[in-house]
């Protein structure tokens, strides 16, 4: 049985254990047993019979992050495989937190500088991509310990933008 931990955007987490035999899946969701019919259509799509309601589901995965489209609605979550444990960086609620560019773009404006105190969700800089400007915010309250980019600079995806501690 594969055991996973699902982290939802509302901060809650749940355990889910799955075992699949042909098109039958046995599931333990937070310990509650469920039995569902399940057919995988391709890499990103499957059909699940949820006791009378048959739904087709699109699941897009990027590392631990999963986007699930179900019944026309979009759900996001992170899945942690209990076999591998949770990566250390993810647990780092304390200490230095690095923020990287989610996509390539251009740094239009710096709103905060090194040494400034910031609140959680406070805007630190403005990135432009696809003709839109977007504030990149601090994931936590703290002190800006590094700003790794300059105004006007173009950054690739994954580039370190700033650190807060």
């Amino acid at each position: 049985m594969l055991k996973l931990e699902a982290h939802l955007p509302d901060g809650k987490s749940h355990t889910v254990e799955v075992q699949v035999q042909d098109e039958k899946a046995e599931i333990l969701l937070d310990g509650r047993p469920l039995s569902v019919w399940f057919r995988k259509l391709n890499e990103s799509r499957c059909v699940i019979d949820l006791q009378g309601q048959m739904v087709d589901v699109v699941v897009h995965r990027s590392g631990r992050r999963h986007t699930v489209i179900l019944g026309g609605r979009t759900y996001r979550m992170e899945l942690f495989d209990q076999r591998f444990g949770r990566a250390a960086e993810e647990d780092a609620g304390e200490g230095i937190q690095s923020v990287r560019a989610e996509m390539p773009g251009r740094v239009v404006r710096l709103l905060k500088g090194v040494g400034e105190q910031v609140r959680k969700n406070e805007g630190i800089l403005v990135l432009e991509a696809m003709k839109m400007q977007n504030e990149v915010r601090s994931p936590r309250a703290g002190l800006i310990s590094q700003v790794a980019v300059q105004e006007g600079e173009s950054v690739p995806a994954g580039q370190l933008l700033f650190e807060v501690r």
Partner: protein
Amino acid sequence: MFKKILVANRGEIAVRVLRACREAGISGVAVYSDVDRAALHVLKADEAYPIGPAPALESYLRMDHILEVAKRCRAEAIHPGYGFLAENPEFPEACEKAGIVFIGPGAQAMRLLGNKISALRTAREVKVPSVPSSGAVEDLATARKLAKEIGYPVMLKASAGGGGKGLRLVQSEKELEQLWQITRDEVAASFKDPTVFLEKYLPAPRHIEIQVMADQDGKVIYFPERECSLQRRHQKILEESPSPIVDPSLRRRMGEAAARLAKKAGYQNAGTVEFLVDRDRNFYFLEMNTRLQVEHPVTEMVTGVDLLHWQIRIAAGEKISLRQDEIQPRGHVLECRINAEDPENQFAPSPGRIQCLEEPGGPGVRCDSGVYAGSEVPIHYDPLISKLVVYGATREEALARSLRALSEYRIAGIRTSIPFFQTLLTHPRVLAGDLSTELLSEILQQPQTQDGEGWQEAVIAAALMYQQSQRRRIESAPSRWRTSAWDERC
């Protein structure tokens, strides 16, 4: 009729034009930047040529490259789409010089109407109403007199203003007296030019526009209005026709005003006259868009007229054979602009590769899409990937059907504004047709409540798909390296 047309654009509008070409038996030529080599508009074309690197300045905005391709492949006409070169009067001029027909208005009309001041002057000449305003005001006595003429509330504004500075909403004469000197001082301190003037304040106006079409003989027809009040940062996101507040008489008056303006300007081909409409249903000229607009399908679906085909025919010298009274709205049409952006993260752009794409179908649904399963949404251009245009016999039916259609989308790989529309189209004020240009920012300020339903099923689905991928991985991956490679891929 033309034999070959080059489309100087990309994305859904290029696809739209190329479809029209195919339907008219005209060869369609695409141009593409390096990142667009396998883009949908390229695949829909009969021929396709590269014009430069990804940044628009080096490709889609390079008139010289585009004209060179047009000459080389012997295109007789160029359709500019919207954006990029569409409203740059130098482009029709350069086309003319190259002996190629520009499918759009002439450079002169484009210049006249593209400039706000000369457009406003032209509008006044043909008695198209604009937002009432005074000239420069020197003293409080004059201000009092003029404000009374315009009618309260008024805005007290700096001529040189910008960024909200020197801008005061004035509700009454008493307020004017209180604010006059403060504003004057602030303006004098903020700008070199201390001039102030008064303008009528329109609280929560609606954005309603009129599509016009003019042929080379000067015949101008107008179409039923489109309401585009729902805007985010001045970008329209939901459009509809008819407007919930426009009746046949207002429709005719707005249409005739728009046609007068187009005629006066010697306008040719498709254009749109934008108005603000206040609570008393007075309309005021805002500006004219001298091109085909993003939201043109709304008009096509509500009238049954193909605007693209007419654009091409008019540019080829055909006369408009439609009679004004033949152009009538039937039913109700809504358009949602589907963007590659993340509505749960301040609408941040969401470029990337589209892994899976299924678009809605069935009755009353039109999808004008610029992407396909497997295609890339590049970071370099605007985030519009598809337009969902929906017809209903009534506004209520169109709203319900739009929600049905939105629920049928399956897009993986990028994030889109679809979940946002699913919330927006159930908002009481949207359902009631109680719109204004300020509504969307009001809605966005409210906390977006996401109810907790469905997460169990979503977790189960994600876990099952993860389990399946692990099964394959275990079966096929003998080494640690393989495992990491797989992780990268997913």
